């Protein structure tokens, strides 16, 4: 599948310097779309960011990013993605800390 359909592509109409671009992400949904949009909005260099799932039977989402100061939306996207990944890792660590140390109601195996 990776050979025929690229995971992500830049849709036509993007700025030449990628300061404003719409990315089409294949095989993703609101799960990634909304979280990614939030992470991009946290970046103060991002002027605008929005996502949409154009049609429920099309397995794609589109993410629009516009940057201030002609910065690259591509690098902002990569930063946001790796930040989200770090966030997952942080939560996993935090969960394990709670799992090992916290005092919570536990299930005791009978027999």
């Amino acid at each position, binding site marked *: 599948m990776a050979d025929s359909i690229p995971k992500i592509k830049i849709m036509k109409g993007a700025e030449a310097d990628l300061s404003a671009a719409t990315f089409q992400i294949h095989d993703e949904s609101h799960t990634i779309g909304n979280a990614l949009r939030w992470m991009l909005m946290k970046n103060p260099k991002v002027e605008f960011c929005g996502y949409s799932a154009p049609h429920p039977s099309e397995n794609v989402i589109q993410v629009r990013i516009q940057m201030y100061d002609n910065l690259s939306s591509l690098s902002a996207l990569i930063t946001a993605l790796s930040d989200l990944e770090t966030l*997952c890792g942080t939560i996993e660590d935090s969960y394990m800390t709670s799992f090992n140390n916290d005092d919570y*109601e536990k299930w005791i195996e009978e027999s």
Partner: protein
Amino acid sequence: MQGHDDLEPTVHIRELKKDKVNFVLKNVDLAFANSLRRVMMADIPTVAIDMVEIEINTTVLPDEFIAHRLGMVPLASSNCDEAIRNTRDCTCLAGCDSCSIMLVLNVACHDHHTMDVTSHHLDVVPPGTPGTWGDGEEQEHDAGEELSKRGERFGHPVGKDEPGTPPVLLCKIRKGQELKLRCVAKKGIAKEHAKWSPCSAVSFEYDPYNKLRHTTHWFESDERGEWPLSENAKEEEPPRDDEPFDFNAQPSQFYFEVETDGSLGPQEVVMKGLAELQTKLANLILGLKTQPELDILTGGEQQPNGNNADGWGAGGGGGGGWGAASGNGGGWGGSASPTRGGAATSAWGATSPHSSGGATSTWGGGANAGWGSPEQQSNGWNV
């Protein structure tokens, strides 16, 4: 309920039972908490019966009825990532020990009582049994390392051989009726069919006092009397009666209860959920890093209309679809200031102490109304 930009995300487990975990996730976005919920419900692979070959069915239920019920039976799926291949990635022609599990059911009633056919009557054919997958062809494929990664109970109906666990009722038969069939269980995810979901329910709550007014409580005469508070309200400060509505507030505490059907443990579901999210993000980064040259070239070559570039780049009122959809396009675009901080302060500074918080909530609200609407989510494959 204040901004949480500088606080570390935390998890606090409140309860962990055999089939459910209850935890509080703090200091993350609503969007992220929702991603975690969605991924746990729909993107974690398990095994479930996918094909049924009925040899004898003299019961009162039609074949497809029974096949559907068999599909819903939870099968033990621990370590599903490594223990079984996706059939579409397997080298075999029509099922083998690496990508499928064969289960058989053969029950007949010979006495005058109504008899229950249950999931406990399903028997797994041990991998390596000759003739399972046809004409002995399976010997040509190497068994792969998947088999060694499987637990002892992998693929068995949940609760079988566990005294006290009630089985799943499939059908009732009486004297002279018989049910004989073979099932093939395969790996899949709940995005394709809900039978592959490891969760029977995921409860997800935030803002138990409805301080953020993300919902409206309909009431006859007294809102507080008619809307009892949830248990989670104990974790939060009740609103004062004279408290003004803080329209910049963002939710920051999320109450999860993940309840599984037994195919995976609750602990495994949460861990796999986070791992699955990371995999999705890693795949995206990989996709961006392996083809950026190609994409930039096509992006640069194809500049069909200059209008487009004008509209977006200048960020003026002509922002068309996007600006209008957010409802704030005019305000933002109009101030052509290079930094977002300036615009935010002028527009929202009165109430929000930190500009980024105000800005985020404004856009977030607009975008949610436009694209993240419930109708879209409940349609089609991306439930």
